[in-house]
């Protein structure tokens, strides 16, 4: 393990890989966003969820191997009923960002999230426009209202919130108004992430987004129920089938095996510009 840990440290220092472990908690979602990389929706036939213990095992092992932080994405992470409790535990292991659409935050759910107050867990909430109609066109009916209802409640509970905006057709003025909005909600500019739609998954079928070049994204080991992938834009789904062009390994347990193959691939790649970190 020492050798693997040293190789991870070298890879991070050289800029060949990121320090974050990504976990695709589930492909199931209560929304069906137009640019979704994973074709997630309420009707998805195969939810491809990680179980709680697998996620915890991966996080512990990632820490031992020298990674320093965690990203949890999906699908909608909070479709998994055990997610709030798991986040408390994961947040104690490493700083964690959880991507969510924030539309499932009932009073009961908010109560379950209260232990995250002051923790190293941040909820990254998607919001694409300051105009409800524009936002909901991409993200689904009533999304804007639900998000703007949830954010103050989370902030009031001491839970760190980030906002992620996925850019496709927004104007500069629209983005500026969105920044005014997030500041008014108590979210700083440092916690506002703006990134392009990526032309994979449903976005590719819709003709949306930017093509990814081989070195456009910093490789970050990404674990899903279907295997380990090169970065969080990799395990995309098109017409119900998961793309394998950026598949690292089907084997994810122990994480060492997947990490070894990930390092083998990244060692042969050019060092990228790291232009779009922490997307999704």
């Amino acid at each position: 393990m020492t050798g693997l840990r040293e190789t991870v440290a070298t890879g991070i220092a050289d800029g060949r890989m990121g320090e974050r472990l990504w976990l695709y908690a589930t492909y199931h979602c209560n929304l069906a966003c137009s640019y979704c990389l994973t074709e997630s929706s309420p009707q998805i036939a195969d939810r491809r969820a990680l179980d709680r213990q697998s996620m915890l095992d991966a996080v512990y092992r990632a820490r031992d191997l020298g990674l320093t932080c965690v990203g949890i994405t999906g699908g909608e992470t909070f479709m998994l009923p055990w997610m709030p409790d798991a986040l408390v535990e994961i947040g104690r292991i490493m700083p964690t960002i959880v991507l969510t659409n924030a539309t499932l935050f009932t009073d009961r759910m908010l109560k379950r999230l209260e232990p995250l107050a002051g923790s190293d867990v941040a909820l990254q909430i998607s919001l694409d426009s300051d105009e409800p109609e524009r936002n909901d066109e991409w993200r689904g009916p009533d999304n804007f209202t639900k998000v703007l209802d949830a954010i103050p409640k989370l902030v009031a509970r001491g839970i760190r919130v980030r906002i992620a905006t996925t850019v496709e057709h927004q104007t500069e003025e629209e983005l500026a108004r969105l920044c005014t909005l997030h500041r008014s909600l108590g979210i700083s500019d440092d916690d506002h992430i703006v990134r392009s739609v990526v032309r994979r998954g449903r976005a590719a079928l819709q003709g949306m987004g930017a093509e990814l070049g081989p070195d456009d994204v910093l490789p970050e080991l990404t674990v899903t129920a279907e295997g380990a992938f090169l970065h969080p834009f990799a395990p995309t789904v098109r017409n119900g089938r998961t793309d394998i062009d950026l598949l690292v390994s089907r084997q994810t347990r122990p994480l060492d095996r997947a990490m070894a193959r990930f390092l083998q691939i990244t060692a042969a790649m050019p060092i990228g510009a790291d232009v779009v970190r922490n997307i999704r």
Partner: protein
Amino acid sequence: MPGAEQAPPLARVYYRGDGSASALTRSFANAPEMMETLMPFLGQIMDESSIDLATKELVIMRVSQLNGCVYCLAAHRPVAIEAGVPDDQLAAICDVGELDALPPRERAIVAWVDQVTCDAGGVTDRLVAATLDHVRDHQLIELTVLAGTITMLNQYCTAFQIPRPGVDL
């Protein structure tokens, strides 16, 4: 046809220089870490060794015929011809000719792989001895592993209906 750019990075080494690959290789690419072991193994088993390539292709064709593998028969026929398997031998092992027409060595090898493939439990000391009249001990081991490997591939290709060469997925 999906090319190497759509294959997992660790599987691309098994694609041809022009980015293409057989339907079987493209199917295996869904499990890239398995390929790391499987592809060198297949190379070792199927390439020329202490047994010449023509003999190996004879076995590959015969086992594929017994298992009814459309893909392997189509894929290996040109390889067998290239390796020097005569047309009449190919016809014999593909059940359009007489097995008795095979030379004694080839007839013995075919009898061995027939027994191993169809009823391995029915191998007799007499059959072993008869085969060893034509091949050495270690060659019999190689031939038997080859026959078993080809049966595995036949089952894989048939179960997943891997399209024969020239037919896109």
